[in-house]
């Protein structure tokens, strides 16, 4: 009963944010225009447990906008996404990003990991502490200590399936996924091994979402790398 009312409250909050987002951009509610997005990314953009389809609800708006542009302009390769986005303007992409970013919806608990204890320990070490001997900064140094991302353009790393995370890091490492230059994430991924990637993805996917799933608004220290598309 309690979880049901929590759910209802969260949904109401979601609706509230959707309305404010619509008001902020001075446009109509976009939900009925974006069936092309929600058919795969889930109702309200919160895909649950689909291996290669990330949740988009609640991600930082700048991050979502950059990814929409990257798909449209060929820096990220996915035939379905780039086909859909070809005839869309920057301003509409910005509004779509704002719409999904403003949806504040609950996350399901993480799925139990199939990784070994050693693998998870290795993943945890890289995510939270990095590896000074290999000049690898910790993931949390850029994605925030709670790992929920940083507004406006750094994504959170929790609440995503392990298969999706390792596929993305793998694509970055192979140069198939790119971001605006300088592509800091591409640089990072290229210094990871496949074992590192699997461990990091497994550990991240096994973590519960902290009580506030929202991205933080500032990092305590400057970014260790230069990143295009991220205001610095």
């Amino acid at each position, binding site marked *: 009963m309690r979880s049901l009312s929590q759910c209802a409250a969260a949904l109401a909050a979601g609706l509230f944010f959707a309305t404010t987002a619509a008001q902020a951009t001075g*446009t109509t509610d976009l939900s009925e*225009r974006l069936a*092309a997005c929600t058919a*795969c990314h889930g109702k309200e953009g919160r895909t649950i447990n689909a291996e290669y389809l990330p949740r988009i609800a609640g991600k930082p708006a700048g991050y979502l906008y950059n990814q929409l542009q990257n798909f449209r302009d060929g820096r990220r390769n996915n035939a379905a996404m780039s*086909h859909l986005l070809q005839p869309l303007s920057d301003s*509409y992409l910005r509004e779509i990003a704002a719409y999904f970013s403003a949806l504040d919806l609950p996350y399901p608990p993480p799925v139990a990991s199939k990784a070994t204890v050693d693998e998870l320990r290795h993943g945890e070490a890289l995510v939270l502490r990095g590896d000074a001997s290999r000049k690898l900064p910790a993931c949390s140094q850029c994605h925030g200590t709670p790992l929920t991302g940083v507004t406006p353009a750094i994504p959170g790393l929790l609440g995503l399936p392990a298969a999706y995370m390792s596929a993305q890091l793998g694509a970055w490492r192979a140069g198939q996924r790119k971001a605006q230059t300088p592509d800091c994430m591409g640089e990072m991924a290229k210094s990871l091994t496949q074992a590192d990637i699997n461990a990091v993805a497994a550990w991240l996917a096994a973590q519960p979402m902290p009580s506030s799933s929202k991205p933080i608004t500032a990092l305590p220290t400057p970014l260790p790398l230069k990143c295009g598309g991220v205001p610095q």
Partner: protein
Amino acid sequence: MKLRRVFWGALIVFGLLVVVWAALVAREFATSALPANTDKFAVTATQIERGEYLARIGNCAGCHTARGGEPYAGGRAVDTPFGAVYAGNLTPDRATGIGDWSSDAFYRALHEGRSRDGRMLYPAFPYPNFTQVTREDSDAIYAYLMNRVAPVHRVNTAHALTFPYDSSLALAMWRLLYFKPASLQVDTSQSAAWQRGAYLVQGLAHCGACHSTRNALGAPLAGHAYDGAMMPLNDWYAPSLTARDEASVADWPLQDIARWLQSGTSPQGAAFGPMAEIVFQSTQYLSNDDALAMATYLKALPVTRGVAFKPSPQTVSSGHTAAADRGSALYKEHCASCHGKDGEGKAGAYPALAGNRTVLMANTTNLYRVVLSGGFAPATAGNPQPHGMPPFYHLLGDDDLTALLNYVRSAWGNNAPAITTLDLIHYRDALRSTQH
């Protein structure tokens, strides 16, 4: 004895023909380079502005800007049935772009399909259309490219055509057979708007490059102008603009055609697929006068085939086969919330499916593609937040899609023949091969 004389006579005639042909081909090769740009081309601000507008209506950037690349720096592959032709660098970079080109050379490229050095260009660059562009418009586009586009040093990508289409001998012969530099033949009995529309549709906007039927060598098929053609990768069909049951606009109000070109949508439906990109990149920038002019010409194109849709008495409900029931259930589950329970759609948002030409067309390519890949109408000033159709590629299997499409093609008075699952599977395979 007589037979022998006929034989020698025929051989001599044949020999003479070969010599004449060879001489003509040789002439194709003999065209010389034009001198480098001497910077004597006087330019006005109005001309540059006009050039920017014309470059958009000609959609030069559609091919000459690579996806996510620098404007006009080229490198985008233009797919043809004979391989890929890579669009060239049109920025004013002297070494790799057109910085060394004079306005004469630029006009000769449009008008005769030749590079500055005299080399023949492949007609994937639609010079069979651009040959009609006036010198004045050519100069304006040239002025814009030379003065407002940033020079980018990017060496042109070599074309990847298959043998024998990659040889300049084949190209010379193709040009002899199918291309002659020409200006627009003005039909002065028509209105000024029609004449302007003819110039834009036939020339600069090169609508026929996709919509005109071609022969096996990729040349326009006589008598089939604007009568529809498969796109080069066979993943879309550019519908006939002269068939009433395809994309003829003969029955549309003039204003709706103009509005469709400018905004990508009208009460009759929205642009999708490659045409959504054309509206997005090009026709949305049409001035009101030019949009109306194109509409006037397109509306007046002769209707050559097809009849307007007439609803049939309901047939689906009487059938009640398992497949029809399945199709109807799938429609209710996946489509009805937007397209309406009777396929009536919602004005300004979701197209009606009852009487919808894309649904009913004999060529089912676009129907399959829209359902499999979905798509947005173009985002334009007149329709800044278009609605999108979801892709069903991963959501529905071939049997379900077949049942669903056959339901849609036969419900609410729709009366198109049934499709087969095999048909759909072939299309899905073809689509997969274009998307790697």
